[in-house]
């Protein structure tokens, strides 16, 4: 059976890399003695697939994973067994059985929503002004360092929403950006741009992913809704 899970990743595990997180879940599943299905071949590994990687240091309220089990088991049973094995910082929020074969999470998820809190002396109106200007641009070029050297990339087409709001914890930007296999915009890239090009002083930014969506035909659906 195939299971889709929604989970949250918070402090202190927000520092875990995607690879660390994958390893951690494999170990949780084994400790929970779930009947994992393994791939065939020389180096069998459990069949687990994750939603797009979260930036290291960011927390998330809604990550997803698909896991294949060799035997039938109720969602409640899975949840009880897993809850005993979850370290502080991970929380399973929902579990759903998925009819196979489902499209890979990485292939269907194309939008991510983040909230970013930071400290600034500017007023809400001033920050809003900056964001508006930023959205008016046709190109927002960032430099990506890779093994082959520095590559330039226009991230503007991948930015869909930028709103700001003054809150007690600081200034908060709510953003919706592209994610997944067709392209990925990271909140830090937008912050860097605001810092460097707009001279906006941003310190102690705290990033939380608040949503991952499958966007199609003008509708945002969560990965759990699309398999409903």
């Amino acid at each position, binding site marked *: 059976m195939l299971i889709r899970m929604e989970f949250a990743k918070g402090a*202190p595990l927000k*520092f875990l890399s995607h690879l*660390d997180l994958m390893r951690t879940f*494999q170990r949780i599943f084994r400790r929970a003695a779930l009947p994992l299905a393994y791939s065939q071949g020389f180096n069998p590994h459990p069949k687990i697939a994750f939603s797009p990687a979260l930036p290291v240091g960011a927390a998330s309220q809604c990550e997803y994973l698909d896991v294949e089990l060799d035997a039938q088991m109720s969602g409640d049973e899975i949840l009880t067994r897993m809850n005993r094995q979850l*370290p502080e910082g991970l929380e399973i929020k929902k579990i759903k059985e998925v009819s196979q074969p489902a499209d890979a999470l990485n292939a269907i998820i194309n939008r991510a929503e983040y909230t970013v809190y930071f400290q600034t002396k500017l007023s809400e109106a001033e920050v809003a002004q900056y964001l508006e200007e930023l959205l008016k641009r046709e190109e927002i070029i960032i430099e990506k360092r890779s093994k082959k050297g520095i590559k330039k990339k226009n991230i503007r087409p991948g930015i869909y929403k930028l709103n700001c709001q003054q809150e007690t914890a600081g200034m908060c930007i709510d953003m919706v950006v592209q994610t997944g296999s067709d392209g990925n915009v990271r909140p830090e890239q937008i912050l860097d741009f605001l810092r460097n090009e707009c001279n906006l002083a941003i310190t102690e930014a705290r990033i939380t992913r608040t949503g991952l969506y499958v966007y199609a035909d003008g509708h945002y659906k969560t990965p759990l809704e699309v398999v409903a």
Partner: protein
Amino acid sequence: MRQYIQEKILPHVLKPTRYLGNEWNVVKKEWEEAKVTMAFAFPDVYEIGMSHLGLHILYGLVNNRSEFLMERVFAPWVDMEEQLRRHKIPLFTLESYRALGDFHVLGFTLQYEMSYTNILNMLDLAGIPLKSADRQEGPLVIGGGPCALNPEPLAPFFDCFLLGDSEEMLLQLLEITARHLNEDGKFDREALLGELSLVSGIYVPGFYQLRYKPDGTIGSVDPAKEEVPPRVQRRIVQNLDEAYFPTKPLVPYMEIVHDRMMLEVMRGCTRGCRFCQAGMVYRPVRERKKDTLLKQAEELVQNTGHEEISLTSLSTADYSCVQPLTKELLNRYQDGGINVALPSLRVDAFSVDLAAEIQRVRKSGLTFAPEAGSQRMRNVINKNVTEEDLLGAVTAAFRAGWTNIKLYFMLGLPGETNDDLAAIADLAKKVLDIGRQELMAQRGRPNITVSVSSFVPKGHTPFQFEGQNPVEELRAKQQFLRGQLKGRGLKFKWHEAKLSFLEAVFARGGRKLAPVLENAWKSGCRFDSWDEHFDYAKWQTAFENAAIDPEFYANRPFDYQEVLPWDHLDAGVSKAYLIREHKRAMEEALTHDCRWDECTGCSICDRFQVENRLWGDEINVD
């Protein structure tokens, strides 16, 4: 503090996971409820420290006792050090983010000479005075592990050292410390050390006085007090099968060097390689019963979720129940996606068969350690393995589908000639040829990696009397081999000769080296075993400033009569035996393994009331 560090500092360092300390199975105790608190310090980064079995054993052992508490600290990487210094945060433990200075006991494990500067750096980062004599307050600083058997270069920095297996001794130390604690949580250092020095295995360096001869060698080492024993004996766990073993070990989040369940199948090795310190200082052989190990494995599987069980020891293929144990583990866990691994292989076909049974090891390649190229040289070092054994083993390996073979050699061994060196290259080429033949049908290509380290004479071994080849000579030998080992399918790797030189200096050196360590650390040395940080020029200045000639320690042969810096520390194997073995080496005579044959007279069994303890025969009976 935890929140401050996690919010303000960790986002700015590489691999913040190193400093989270929230691993699965972590033990977090109420500080106030613990009578004695101890920080276990590993003077290298998290990934290396967490791979060390000893840490997990002591962590579980001490925390199992309600009145004691143990937390961990690792050497912070340079970026973290910078942050700590900038924010003026003292080095802290991972469990409670408490400063090291708050603990009653601070214990360093001494695995490797080249981590010594990290120890000084960690003390300094914690705001603890480096020298024992300058510490009126603060934790009792103790050290254990293999290098504690010659800790003299570190002597002024430590209050005491634990020699040998620490399991029983450490609990004793904590109990005694508890008795010495006053209402305010402080203790009278001198009185505490006085009592500790009477415990078998505990060495208080401050209680020994050294006299030197005009030529710089040691005249004598004498106890400064009457009741202090003239020689300190190493402690040995007699019955390993009944010894504590942690089956609920910490499970790290980040990838570490050995990221798997560890089953310690035995301790000790009596094969008697004459260069090998572990083979001399962990005698005799003490095995665990197969059933004990199976039970431990079951608990480990439930408690960790790791995907691999590794059977650890100095030479696992020698474990008398290795075959039935491996088979049983595979039967039980393979379907659950759990693999079994043997980290150390002997150079023979039996080991290859065993490895072949464990299918998944195949991918990673196989390593063999013939150590020397020529039979003559292998006789000198007492490596009881022939060229036939090795060629047989690699043939079996290629046949079983391995294409990557790694061969370990040492250069600069006592009495080594050019012929012996050339034999290394010859042997590697023979292995390559066999690989080509065997793999032809399978359309594979053999890859042979020849990894050559430089011989480092270590205390408590028959070769402790031997000087190391001077650096230039080691380099010339490396160059020679490099020339010989060019070509398709061959890869040559070697170690930085200057690093091996420093290793020899501190492995064979005495107390006079302490100022050198301090100088080197002050000038910025740390993480010396990491290529990107090793800076020999700084060391050279440190030696000059301390007016120490490092070659006096590394390159000079030691006389049999000379009082060596570690002679007052009794690792078990007698000096007479080491001398006899050294002489036999010069005669190229082999000494057999006492495990399966009669005693060869190292004297430990009688003097320490221990014996080789094997379980294989009992299994064969039923």
